[in-house]
């Protein structure tokens, strides 16, 4: 049996059968449920138009995906190292690159699970308009590289940091910094530094593309710049993960 498949299956088990993974998934569904309830139940928020609601939902799904991918990425290396289960895996005849591919696949499966979990919520808030399909598609196309990028970053940090806690905190700071243009508000985003940061930020690339496609009804093909930014960061983090995982000593 292919070791990549074996490790990916093991990682899926960690997510779906281990209590730790199940708790994270439960937390994700609680946040999605609360957010959906707010969007459809709150008097003020229910006045938002359908495109805005779908946009908000896709942004929160992507943010949750990035957070969980980061946690899974850190845990699959640094967490396993602290639990003592990484070394036996490294001592199998499978090459490091193969083991890494299995772990990267585990991150991708975690994102796939969150994406599937989010579909009923997207349907619940967006089924009354014309934007749900576009929302689902752009989240799959542009959310995927951004979420995977954070998962690969988690693996890189987990490989290099002394502890899972350090790796996770560093990853969370990076995630918050990436999401900061969204939090800063329109006026700060329009400043020179804000625009520059926005231009190279993968998280901004995703939400700006969501904005353009879902709210402004632009075509997905017109988002090539945003795709390029997300893919560049994805490949950079993949290279970093490969480099860092190869350096693991024990």
């Amino acid at each position, binding site marked *: 049996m292919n070791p990549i498949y074996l490790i990916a299956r093991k990682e899926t088990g960690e997510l779906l059968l281990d209590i730790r993974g199940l708790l994270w998934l439960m937390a994700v569904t609680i946040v999605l449920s609360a957010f959906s309830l707010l969007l459809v139940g709150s008097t003020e928020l229910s006045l938002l138009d359908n495109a805005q609601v779908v946009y908000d939902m896709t942004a929160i799904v992507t943010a949750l995906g990035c957070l969980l991918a980061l946690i899974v990425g850190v845990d699959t290396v640094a967490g396993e190292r602290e639990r003592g289960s990484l070394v*036996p895996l490294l001592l199998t005849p499978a090459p490091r690159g193969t083991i890494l591919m299995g772990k990267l696949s585990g991150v991708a499966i975690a994102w796939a699970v969150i994406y599937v979990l989010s579909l009923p919520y997207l349907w619940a808030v967006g089924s009354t308009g014309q934007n749900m399909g576009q929302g689902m598609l752009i989240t799959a196309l542009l959310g995927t590289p951004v979420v995977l990028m954070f998962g690969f970053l988690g693996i890189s940090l987990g490989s290099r940091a002394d502890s899972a806690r350090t790796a996770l905190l560093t990853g969370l700071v990076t995630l918050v910094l990436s999401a900061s243009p969204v939090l800063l508000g329109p006026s700060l985003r329009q400043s020179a530094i804000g625009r520059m940061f926005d231009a190279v930020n993968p998280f901004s690339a995703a939400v700006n593309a969501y904005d353009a496609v879902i709210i402004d009804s632009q075509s997905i093909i017109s988002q090539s710049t945003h795709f390029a930014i997300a893919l560049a960061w994805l490949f950079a983090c993949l290279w970093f993960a490969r480099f860092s995982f190869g350096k693991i000593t024990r």
Partner: protein
Amino acid sequence: MLVEIDGLRLSIGATPILHDVHLALSAGEIFGLLGPNGAGKSTTIATAIGLLKPDAGHIRMLGKDPQVFANEIHRHLGVLPEQNGFYGWMSAEDYLAFFAAMNGLSLSRNEIRKRLDTVGLHTRARQPIGTYSHGMRQRLGLARALIANPDLLILDEPTNGLDPRGRREVHDILLELAGKGVGILLCTHLLDDVERLCQRVGIIVGGRTVAEGTIAGLVRSEHRLARFRLKLASDPTQTDEANVTVVAREGEWWVVDLNPALTPDKAWSELLSHGWAITEIRREGGGLEDLYLTLTEGSAA
């Protein structure tokens, strides 16, 4: 030779950890690697299996350089590391099947259960590992190390946490494996285990091998007295033996020091031939424990 390490030096960052480690292990041999906490035993093992890159020295595992042929070496190597972690949600059966598959083996469920039976976990095969006791995890770790029928086993404290019966069972497994030609590098603080299992030992202190050889040879070369307590059926007719010094007499027990240059079996033959009616022999300190304590004095972590 399965393991050849000579002049091994390694620093982690700016801190030198290993200064001059050497050891050799051949097929069918059980070699005890001893040393106080922090002496460099685990680092030596990590370097030998290719996880750490040495600064200098010669390492050959199964005749190959672990820095170049790590994956090929791992194919013939079983390791029970010091920190032995598992996937708590998996059953022992699934866990072994996973590692068998990772080693390129397709073992049937029956074969997996046989492996679990070897380490006494057959009845718990479907139970999640998360519910296992420390001793059961040690047994499962040993089963994992043995899954690919390795030529070389490296075991870090394999009997740690085992009850006396479990410890004896692990001893029997290791002796059987050595009898089949498997080389075993045993890293432990339990000198009883070492004396029972190992033909040769190496003692590492402060990242340096300070002694390597057979237990009897090291004890002799260091001029350690081997002190024994002998139970005699009757008083000996002659007590001024050349190779034995009587230290004390406590009822029917006689405390004696053997000449360090003489192996115990030769001493007993000599005493029996001189009319010593020995019915029971017990070691009284001396030997490996004394040697270890002397060599590691002042280096306890």
